[in-house]
């Protein structure tokens, strides 16, 4: 299992290859950074929050979202095609009987377009190795105490899909607008390590 790469041999190799590509004119100076910036631009938890709020107020949208997330998020002007190719999105929804939480045990796969860059803990070996084995304890460490009879479903982003969780809508929010509801949704809520 990989950890922090900053001083790893692979990081040195990548820098070396980048230098060679630039020297031979195959890559413009700073092009990789620019491409990464473009990919990250617009990526924010506010996007995921908008999706969650829409799912709360519009049951038909929620159904479409759970069945075909890539199609449904187009309805709120979002897409998963900001990278080299469109990534498949899988959205799951928490209920009063089931709680979902997302991890990438093999590296750090994450829906950047919808959540922005991932938090450091999401990439840590501790989170990645422990949440699949003992999610209830890990969630408790995040401050999320689930009732003992709530089933926990962990999703390992081990291949090409990216995942997002729709948290449960908080009680007492019947009078709020969709925009106000979106303001309640947190990044951790969309990963599944917090309630909203």
């Amino acid at each position, binding site marked *: 299992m990989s950890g922090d790469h900053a001083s790893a041999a692979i990081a040195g190799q990548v820098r070396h290859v980048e230098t060679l590509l630039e020297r031979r004119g195959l890559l413009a100076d700073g092009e990789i950074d620019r491409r990464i910036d473009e990919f990250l631009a617009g990526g924010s938890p506010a996007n995921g929050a908008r999706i969650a709020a829409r799912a709360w107020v519009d049951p038909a949208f929620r159904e479409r979202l759970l069945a075909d997330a890539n199609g449904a998020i187009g309805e709120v002007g979002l897409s998963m095609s900001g990278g080299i190719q469109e990534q498949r999105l899988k959205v799951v929804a928490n209920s009063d009987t089931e709680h979902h939480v997302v991890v990438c*045990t093999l590296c750090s796969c994450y829906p950047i377009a919808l959540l922005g860059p991932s938090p450091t803990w999401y990439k840590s070996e501790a989170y990645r190795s422990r949440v699949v*084995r003992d999610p209830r304890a890990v969630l408790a460490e995040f401050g999320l105490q689930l009732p003992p009879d709530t*089933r*926990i479903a*962990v999703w*390992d982003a*081990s*291949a090409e*899909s990216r995942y997002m969780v729709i948290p449960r809508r908080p009680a007492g929010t019947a009078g709020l607008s969709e925009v106000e509801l979106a303001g309640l949704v947190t990044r951790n809520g969309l990963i599944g390590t917090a309630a909203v």
Partner: protein
Amino acid sequence: MADRFGPGDPVRTRTLDPAGHTRLPRYARGAVGEVVESAGRHPLADDRARGRSTPPQAVYHVRFAAAELFGTGDHSVTVELWEDYLEAAAGRDPVQDGSDHER
């Protein structure tokens, strides 16, 4: 080529321990789970990492009981796995266990 597995199919992950890159997590090797749904078709990551051209193949969300993976726990873990990582596992007999395979 049609997908080999569909929702509800019991599958067993292989116990391969390849020398190079793979995206079959070690904790999920040799375990029996159930296909939840298709996750599209993608070239096998193991081949791509080795620079081999490889046609897209079916990928599935496969759900495992934690106890099957770790010997303990009451949660489930759903792992996304390429078809090459999977073989058919013996299914429960729907008549014998009386369930209607609610899937």
